[in-house]
């Protein structure tokens, strides 16, 4: 492998598919204008579309070459501007393998490589349709190298350096339990956008249909309309349910001595490998619905955008785990998480301060409610329902805000935003900066806000606990800067 290689010819298909996905609206535009154009312009347009949607991907495919060297991955790409990328293995944050079902018979897959550099949107390297051996070779080279401590803050702490670097050394494996997975899919929030879209379409149904229905059966009209709406919601719910099950199909989490690997997906099998030493923080997340069902989702925050399809770009490592088994399951995969449920009693919102969170939530919604109510009388006043909702959300936030310094190195913070409880586990070495803020009025009540900044994706994850005791916030500040 000394000559740079092209990807498999099927890679051309991938490039074309991506181009079509990004520019399908051009075709619509062309069809829409078809009638208004002269033959000459029609020809020009068809030619332009062919070049842009078929020839351009071909050039992309032709100019993309890669080389897996013992020390680095080298990728050449670009049509007018040539890119020559040289990525040493020690810089790689995550390797992602994506295999669409139609590539499986050919033993091909798409390989994506991410580093910690601050580059947005696109992965550093994307090789569509390369043999599966490429990622294997790459991983073999990657783990043969001793993990050199690099400049990224992630490795400032003591990582297990003695780790034997062979890939098949599997320490732990976790496969999702079908029962929890079904509950998880049933309680997904994906239904909300889907239902909104479908309900809008439902409202846009040609009026003749609904009118004739109403004429035919006047006394049935209301039940029919409501029944239709319920049907739409049901369809949305099933759609969201199927979507989650397909995405997380046969979810497997594997731990080797130094890596975490997640594999999931039915039509597109997605395998992501991330070094344990680069985990910035662990987040357990549950919506209020899943709180009632005692179901948690665990994600890891990484310093790269490896998991763009996942919730908030963070890699899901345990999609649906029963609360009581969370800590015993998580600990073997990530050593520094507590082996049992921690007591989060140090950082809480004092009871007399709880109403402040409700007050703030009300302040946020009051102006929109007044405007909407005034503009669209009388139905606009229905938006006043947001006010009790805001009060409840404030109470929810107050009750769920919690945290503790578990060990001298490990901080646990819990927040409750938008009816979702999030628990973060962060090690001191991964906290990039810490801020305490308070206003004069809060000073009188001995309250403060605490903000912890952690790297996540290519950005910053701010974890803010609001209205906690000033004394505890100060204690954490002193702990952090020491």
């Amino acid at each position, binding site marked *: 492998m000394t000559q740079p290689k092209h990807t498999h010819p099927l890679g051309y298909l991938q490039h074309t598919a991506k181009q079509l996905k990004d520019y399908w609206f051009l075709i619509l535009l062309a069809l829409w204008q078809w009638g208004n154009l002269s033959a000459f312009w029609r020809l020009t347009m068809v030619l332009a579309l062919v070049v842009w949607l078929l020839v351009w991907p071909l050039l992309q495919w032709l100019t993309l070459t890669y080389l897996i060297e013992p020390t680095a991955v080298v990728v050449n790409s670009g049509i007018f501007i040539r890119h020559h990328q040289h990525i040493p293995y020690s810089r790689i944050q995550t390797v992602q393998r994506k295999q669409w079902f139609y590539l499986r018979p050919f033993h091909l897959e798409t390989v994506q490589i991410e580093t910690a550099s601050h580059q947005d949107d696109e992965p550093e390297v994307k090789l569509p349709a390369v043999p599966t051996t490429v990622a294997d070779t790459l991983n073999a080279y990657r783990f043969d190298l001793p993990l050199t401590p690099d400049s*990224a*803050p*992630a490795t400032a702490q*003591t990582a297990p350096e003695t780790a034997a670097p062979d890939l098949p050394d599997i320490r732990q494996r976790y496969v999702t339990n079908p029962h929890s997975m079904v509950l998880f899919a049933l309680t997904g929030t994906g239904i909300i956008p889907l239902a909104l879209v479908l309900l809008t379409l439902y409202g846009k149904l040609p009026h003749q249909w609904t009118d004739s229905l109403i004429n035919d059966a006047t006394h049935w009209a209301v039940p029919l309309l409501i029944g239709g709406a319920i049907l739409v919601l049901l369809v949305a719910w099933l759609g969201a349910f199927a979507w989650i099950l397909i995405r997380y199909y046969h979810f497997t989490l594997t731990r080797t001595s130094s890596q975490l690997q997640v594999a999931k997906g039915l039509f597109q099998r997605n395998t992501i490998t991330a070094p344990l030493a680069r985990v910035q923080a662990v987040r357990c997340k549950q919506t209020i619905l899943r709180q009632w069902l005692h179901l948690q989702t665990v994600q890891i925050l990484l310093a790269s955008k490896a998991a763009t399809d996942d919730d908030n770009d963070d890699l899901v490592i345990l999609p649906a785990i029963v609360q009581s088994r969370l800590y015993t399951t998580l600990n073997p995969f990530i050593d520094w998480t507590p082996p049992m449920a921690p007591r989060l009693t140090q950082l809480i919102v004092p009871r007399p301060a709880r109403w402040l969170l409700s007050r703030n939530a009300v302040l946020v919604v009051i102006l929109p409610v007044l405007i909407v109510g005034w503009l669209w009388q009388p139905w606009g006043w229905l938006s006043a329902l947001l006010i009790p909702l805001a009060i409840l959300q404030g109470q929810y936030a107050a009750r769920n805000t919690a945290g503790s310094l578990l060990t001298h190195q490990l901080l646990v913070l819990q927040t409750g935003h938008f009816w979702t409880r999030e628990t973060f586990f962060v090690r001191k070495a991964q906290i990039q*900066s810490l801020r305490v803020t308070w*206003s*004069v009025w809060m000073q009188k009540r001995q309250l403060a806000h605490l903000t912890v900044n952690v790297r996540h994706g290519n*950005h*910053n994850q701010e974890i803010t606990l609001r209205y906690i005791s000033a004394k505890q916030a100060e204690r954490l500040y002193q702990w952090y800067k020491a």
Partner: protein
Amino acid sequence: MHTTKSLPPRIKRIWGYSALGSLLALLVITGLLWLAHQFWHWTPWLAVLGAILTVIEPVIEFALIPYRYRFSRYQITPTAVEMQSGWLFKKRLAIPIARVQNVTLNAGPLLQWQHLTQVTVATAATSHTIEGLELPVAEQLRDQIMQLAQEARHDPA
């Protein structure tokens, strides 16, 4: 508290000029709104609103300068960079030296003219700015932070 340092007094003059700048910008905007009223019959209330803002905003900005100066402080210890600011809304921030990725000195025309510079300390996730320091102090600070950062990184703490 005695170890925290305040910004150089000349920064007040910069803030004063920047308030003057806002005044000018708002004047121009108000003028344009008035012209729009003259030529395209936009509602005159927009121009009135602009005029009110033109008076209020720079006055507040001017009035707050002594407070802003008095309560903006910074401190470099061997382990951390600390910044604090504000009185009505107080803020304290700590960045451990070991988390510092780089230090940038930035100076716009006003700051250059006064031989001052902004110091921005960046971590892997966030960046934080000290609003203005004497150029030699800033350079010394940068070297000091980077020196400490180097040491902190070599030290397997």
